[in-house]
């Protein structure tokens, strides 16, 4: 006789505070008790309720045979690696955590995973792209599980106006791993009595997803749908470039025509021409240098000045986007207010170059404007007054090419392109890296200044970097260091590391 034959069904739920993991566990217990199971559930909330990871653990034991009637089974309070039948994760990184904890094992576990991402603090506070590798996480989940059901269940919840716990409950039912009928699950939702209609809809969506039903499709990456006749000849000139340079060039043309005018887009192409030739002469056929310059040059030429910001804020498409983003229903009025804090620098930047320089260099005038711009302003774009203020600033667009900022930015880009050209002749990879390094210069005010400082430091290090065994990698490492913190500590250390000590220089 095998005394260990009868065992409970074990279910672990990994969620985050506020996602309704507790409700899901209660539904499972309720459905199971009505289906003749002895159910036990426990949880570890604690401070994890405050946005941290939480987990719930449920055990179900069939109330079959005389034995379980007389003597209750001893049910566990913690999931044991290798002994978990179902693991439900409400988010992809939490799914990864379940794998890491060994709860998901190929001998046993049905793994229900919502692939949506709730970004961790580490990912969110990165100065550039600090996101975890979703593909690796999902691959890990697939490798660990006996059976996996995955999909963006959060999107299904949103589509059905419900919460993810109901979709997960549906997916659990649809996985058919528990010996209960669909109706038994749904009855638990009905007995719960809260938000029944939406929960049932979400349950249905989850059930269908588990059965391999169609999943919602994410919007495709932007493609240029319509080309205006003015830009057609410019677009035609990109034909000879290899991908992805060609795509970037086309996007650049469109961006700059929108930013200024077709002539500005023409300038863009003209500046790329010598780079394209250099790429052909010194490149390895990949066209990477041209691609990186095409991408960065477009961003550099479309620098974010007050005119650009004002123009983007008042567009009709933007009003529609805000309504969609805040999920305004018909009949609801939406008012929009901007938080702007122009300083004397931004004002000078917008003025004609000579006037701007005068303002920055004339003590009393500068102090006067500084006093006026000490605190930030809230501009209500949806009011006539606020709208017209921004409209007036946006109207300065035709005069942009005479502004101080324009002069400064063009000088900067000119120098950057010259450096790339010079370096490309001897080191193609390093030139490509220099092209990418411009990415450090972004944002507004302090952020922009910090980025520019970091970029300048990298460029100052170029002669030294070129003496190193792998200059491109060295520059890339410095760029990453510049993005490691916003105090410049990591970059300072990285530079110290490669700067030769006096005696070592001999």
């Amino acid at each position: 006789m095998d005394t260990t034959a009868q065992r409970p069904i074990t279910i672990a739920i990994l969620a985050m505070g506020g996602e309704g993991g507790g409700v899901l566990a209660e539904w499972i217990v309720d459905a199971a008790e009505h289906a003749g199971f002895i159910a036990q559930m426990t949880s570890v909330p604690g401070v994890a309720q405050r946005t941290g990871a939480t987990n719930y653990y449920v055990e179900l034991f069939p109330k079959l045979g005389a034995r379980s009637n007389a003597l209750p089974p001893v049910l566990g309070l913690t999931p044991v690696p290798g002994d978990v039948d179902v693991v439900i994760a409400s988010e992809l990184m939490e799914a990864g955590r379940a794998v890491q904890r060994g709860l998901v094992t190929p001998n046993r576990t049905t793994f229900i995973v919502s692939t949506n991402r709730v970004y961790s603090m580490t990912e969110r506070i990165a100065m550039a792209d600090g996101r975890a590798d979703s593909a690796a996480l999902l691959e890990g989940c697939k490798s660990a599980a006996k059976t996996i059901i995955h999909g963006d269940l959060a999107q299904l919840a949103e589509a059905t106006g419900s919460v993810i716990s109901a979709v997960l409950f549906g997916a659990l039912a649809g996985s058919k791993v528990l010996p209960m009928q669909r109706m038994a699950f749904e009855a638990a939702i009905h007995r719960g009595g809260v938000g029944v209609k939406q929960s049932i809809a979400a349950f249905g969506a989850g059930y269908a997803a588990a059965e391999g039903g169609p999943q919602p499709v994410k919007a495709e990456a932007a493609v240029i749908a319509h080309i205006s006749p003015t830009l057609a000849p410019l677009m035609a000139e990109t034909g000879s470039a290899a991908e992805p340079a060609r795509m970037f060039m086309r996007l650049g043309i469109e961006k700059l025509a929108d930013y200024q005018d077709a002539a500005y887009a023409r300038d863009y192409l003209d500046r790329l021409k010598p780079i394209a030739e250099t790429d052909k002469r010194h490149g390895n056929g990949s066209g990477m240098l041209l691609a990186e310059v095409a991408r960065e040059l477009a961003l550099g030429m479309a620098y974010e000045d007050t005119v650009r910001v004002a123009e983007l804020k008042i567009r009709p498409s933007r009003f529609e986007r805000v309504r969609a983003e805040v999920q305004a229903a018909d009949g609801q009025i939406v008012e929009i207010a901007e938080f702007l804090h122009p300083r004397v620098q931004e004002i000078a930047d917008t003025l004609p170059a000579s006037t701007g320089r005068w303002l920055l260099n004339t003590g009393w005038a500068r102090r006067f404007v500084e006093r006026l711009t000490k605190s930030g302003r809230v501009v209500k774009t949806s009011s006539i007054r606020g709208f017209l203020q921004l409209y007036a600033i946006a109207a300065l667009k035709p005069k942009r090419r005479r502004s101080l900022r324009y002069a400064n930015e063009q000088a900067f880009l000119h120098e950057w392109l010259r450096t790339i050209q010079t370096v490309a002749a001897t080191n193609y990879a390093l030139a490509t890296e220099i092209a990418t390094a411009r990415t450090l210069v972004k944002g507004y005010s302090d952020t922009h200044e910090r980025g520019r400082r970091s970029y300048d430091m990298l460029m100052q290090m170029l002669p030294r970097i070129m003496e190193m065994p792998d200059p491109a990698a060295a520059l890339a490492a410095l760029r990453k260091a510049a993005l490691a913190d916003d105090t410049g500590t990591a970059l300072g250390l990285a530079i110290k590391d490669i700067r030769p000590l006096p005696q070592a220089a001999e």
Partner: protein
Amino acid sequence: MAERSFRDEVEKLKLGDGAEFHGEGILAVTKALLQSGVSYVAGYQGAPISHLMDVLADANEILEGLGVHFENSASEATAAATLAASVNYPLRGAVTFKSTVGTNVASDALANLASGGVTGGALIIIGEDYGEGSSIMQERVHAFAMKSQMWLLDPRPNLPSIVNAVEMSFELSEASNTPVMLMLRIRACHVYGRFTAKANKRPEFGLADALENPRRDLSRIAMPPMTYIHEKDKWEKRWPDAVKFVEDRRLNEFFDGDANDIGIVMQGGLYNTTIRALMLNKLADAFGDSKIPLYVMNVTYPLVDKEFVRFCAGKKAILIVEEGQPDYIEQAVNTILRRADIQTRVYGKDVLPMAGEYTGGVVRDGIRKFIEKTRPDLLPAGAPISDAPLKQRESKAAALVATDVHGRPPSFCTGCPERPIFAAMKLVERELGPHHVSADIGCHLFSIFPPFNVGATTMGYGLGAAGASALNVKAGKRAIAMMGDGGFWHNGLTSGVGNAVFNKSDNVLIIVDNGYSAATGGQDIPSSFHPHASRGTQNSIEKAVRGVGVTWAKTIDHTYDVALMRDTLREALTTEEEGPKVIIAHSECMLNKQRRMRPLWRKAADRGERVVRERFGVDADTCTGDHSCIRLSGCPSLTIAPNPDPLRREPVTKVINSCVGCGLCGEVSHAAVLCPSFYRATLITNPSGWDIFKDRIRTAVIGFFQRRIERRLAAA
């Protein structure tokens, strides 16, 4: 009003004889108290027994109906001292708090209580906050039981056993004149199960009887020479009485097994885990039928020597499954067996880990090692659990996720009023450089994690200011101390503020006044903003600090005003004025505010009333993906999203719809001069006639200009 309401569930407390109770562990404990004829209950909230306090608060009417008095104690020391009512009177009383932090605070009162001894049953329900999900340092309550000589019950984690343990505790306490501690682990507190109820019992002797017929007994007061007598009495009388009671009433349980030359001894609380571990080693079935004899200690202090001698008879080895360190029980068992000259080998922390939670996997592996050493013949041949290809898949999976799973430490909720305090602190840091920050216990301690990374030490609840007290010399910078309103009333007013006044400290203290004991689940405190039927709320913190002698005190009524917060903090750090500088940052806990207001807004909207909701957003086309705004906030609603511009690689910042429009994003982008991407959207549901009129005019005028813009764009 607490975060979680038990208003419906407390109806189960009325169940009578023979009815089946279904519910959570802590609710079962409450029912057991009522079945035991308890006269008074008190406590201080804290995981994992916060919900026990919430249940009691929500059950106040039922308690009053039974003549049971319930108090929200000011601290665990207050709670423990409350048990003084059971010293001279035949009153059964119970108090509850989390351990070991609560026990630390309570230990003065507990030591006095245990020295003099009790007449009525005195029960301390301990939420043992140990292992996964714990929020405190990892220590054992066992040490407190030993040092003051209180009995410690650690029942099997199922509702019938827990309920029985509560009832037995009162009897044990009365039989041995000793307070009894009943410890419940986190998962046992939250375990859902069932038991057969008994009728509630009204106390025979009430609190009013005590007040009207006061009694005293000098021999029970902890003062020399009585304390010398107490010490002897503890050993000569109370201990043997307790041991006899435990034996006679069979509080510990024995289960036979075929392999009777070995045995396993465990704390009752680890019974289920041990059975599962045996089951996974194919040594027990799901009903607890084990091949190896088991000794389940539902009472872990005192140990019953005779039971050990009996259990070890004929056994070559036993395994002790004892969670946490030091291994008090294992050491004691070795002493017992040596004294009795019994040669049974004691295994324990040599096959199980010394530290850390005893989860199923840990105990499974420990038991396997024990069996391998003592009875390898009991183990099935070959690899027991999984084979090589499966193992390979597991390790491949682990390697794939290794670098991409980040920790998720707790952080401030969406719209939390404490976040702007730390955003302001970061801005002041840019001007004046970093300062020493002494942190406290409470939600504000989340500042130690990214993105704020603020706070050097935390010495205990309400001890933020005390933690900075040595740093009280003339220097170029002052220390900043944090304290919550919960900690302030718990002890911070005296240990921190009074101490700083008395010692002429120049430091700065920020008191976070959010209206609740927020971190423990939103319980009310003396300075809660709203009037309360049965508690005295709305007491001003500023008045209290001025009352103990603070002269520089400022209350900020809207913490979201980051510029004001920054300027006030700067002033506190630089003012010439002597003595402690106290800033009271007063804004309601957003979690509780939303819980309170959301249903009201929904109802108003359904009634067709004008409802205004604000939320923030980010324009993806002006956001350059630097995320400075997130580094000054960390709000869960402020996250990132793929950049819609294919030319850019950095994800953009995005505000998700859980935003409550607290205003911090706008304030921060102003105060820190960040970027113009933030906008505030005001959504008006059921707009008034005036709203609609205004909107029409605006749409007409703005629409005119927008059409011009569109034409120009199309022409380009």
